[in-house]
């Protein structure tokens, strides 16, 4: 009797563990089954490299959105990575304990704030600021990049800080013993040693930035055309889906699902890179 119960529960636990595998498989199947035939129907090159998105004329080229996603992500890296990295180094090696007690929860809170709040903040503060000081409508690639840079900070900081803390202290002490100052020891021994972990954090941040939807939608302007410049509006793959899904039908709807497939492939590549880098950290 007891043995039977043990056996049953063993299978229940195993089934629960396999649920995540089944879910990933299902997500893949549903997206690809709906998206891939559409890409075939529109034509792979017409879809991926088409410069025009005109659902009314049945022209579905998502190159503007792909470029839009890549540009705002690069912008987010340029603004977010240096600040995030320096903050992580600060927290791991420079921070006075008293300040750390405030800074650590602050970073955790930054990670917890919903993206719609970030978007709202961007909408009421950053958009008017950029409109008044730099010109344009304010809803622009620059605004989206800055906001995303802010949003990926906590991801980069927490992963990089953990990586920096995992470096054995003997590296640092060795550098000190050779006559280097604190700053030099940290930047030339600890930071290079934590390279893989730091890269993993940056990759994770890139994944967040490229997948972010609600914050971008509120500040990016969302014009479906080739990106024109820093102060002009852009539309990303994520926002393309949210904006048009509400009223899309037939091929238009399928084209949006196909956009999600392209986005999903981007994310899968980013995730695999992250897993690979994480594996390297564990090996070290």
């Amino acid at each position, binding site marked *: 009797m*007891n043995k039977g*119960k043990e056996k049953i529960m063993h299978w229940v*636990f*195993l*089934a*629960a*563990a396999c*649920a*995540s*595998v089944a*879910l*990933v498989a*299902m*997500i893949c199947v*549903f*997206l690809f089954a709906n998206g891939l035939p559409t890409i075939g129907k529109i034509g792979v090159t017409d879809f991926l490299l088409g410069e025009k998105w005109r659902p009314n004329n049945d022209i579905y080229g998502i190159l503007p959105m792909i470029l839009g996603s890549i540009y705002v992500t690069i912008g987010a890296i340029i603004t977010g990575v*240096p*600040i995030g990295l*320096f*903050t992580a180094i*600060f*927290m791991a090696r*420079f921070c006075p304990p008293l300040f750390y007690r405030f800074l650590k*929860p*602050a970073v*955790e*809170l*930054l990670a*917890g*704030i*919903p*993206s*719609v*709040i*970030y978007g*709202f*903040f961007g909408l*009421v503060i950053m958009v008017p600021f950029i409109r008044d000081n730099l010109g344009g409508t304010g809803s622009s690639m620059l605004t989206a990049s800055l906001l995303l840079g*802010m949003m990926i*900070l906590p991801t980069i900081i927490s992963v990089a800080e953990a990586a920096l803390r995992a470096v054995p202290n003997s590296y640092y002490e060795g550098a000190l013993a050779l006559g*280097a*100052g*604190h*700053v030099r020891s940290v930047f030339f021994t600890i930071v290079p040693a934590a390279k893989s972990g730091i890269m993993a954090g940056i990759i994770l941040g890139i*994944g967040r930035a490229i*997948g*972010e*939807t609600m914050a971008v*939608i509120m500040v990016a302007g969302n014009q479906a055309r080739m990106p024109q410049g820093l102060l002009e509006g852009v539309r990303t793959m*994520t926002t393309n889906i*949210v904006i048009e*899904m*509400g009223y899309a039908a037939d091929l238009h709807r399928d084209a949006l699902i196909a956009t*999600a497939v392209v*986005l*999903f492939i981007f*994310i*899968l590549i980013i*995730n695999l890179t992250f*897993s690979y880098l994480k594996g390297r950290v564990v090996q070290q």
Partner: protein
Amino acid sequence: MNNFSARLRKTLYSYGTEPSAILLLFCVWGSAIATFLTLAFLLLYILWQGLPHITPALFALEYNTTNVSLFPALVDTVIMVIMALAMATPLGIFAAIYLVEYAKRGNKIVNVVRVTADTLSGIPSIVYGLFGMLFFVTYLKMGYSLLAGSCTVAIMVLPLIMRTTEEALKAIPDSYREGSYGLGAGKLRTVFAIVLPSAIPGILAGIILSIGRIVGETAALIYTSGTVAALPANVFSSGRTLAVHMYVLASEGLFMQQAYATAVILVVIVICINAASGYLARRLMKGN
């Protein structure tokens, strides 16, 4: 005071006197302060703008264009959190139990599950939203409903619950299990009577973080749970959560005061959630 400045000079000297060291020192301090001020500015601005607009009318039972009540959204959020957790928590905990307690070393399934869980946690919420729309709303014919929305977010928080439970279970010393076996308990009994109760703070911290994710979720819910702003009749009716409500208000631009007020409510919820999970995590650290 003199003593302090002497100590400061000594610290700075030990940091290195070359110009690059001073520049880097400036960078790390500047970045840390910038990060801190970003958060402080964001929170203070939203609280300062929003607090005056929190009025009793916001909590009226019914939503209409004169009161723009957020009460239905609040109810929807609570229902959404409860339903999603009811689905994700048992699944996540059971999966973690298998990974930590049952799977043998070098088991291939464990690796596959880890990789897929990582994949799940990296998928953007809009992709979840689209999947939820295709699968729950259309294929399973749930329509735009709280049920479809909660199924979608349940999948979203599953990897988070799994991962935190796994960490919590791993932190339980093996001597607990050995003691239990030594007293004649079976595997199942050991897991439920000894291991799980000791891991509760860690598991709770994960669940609380999941609540935060669900409360803040927007993109995955717009096309699964819909944007109806009335009190839901049952789980098959459509409803907007607070975050969706906030998005709709802000993007329409007609009710900015109410949007600020909703933002305040969301921010306060998030702060409470973070404080609670931080408290539990600290208790866990002390316990070990």
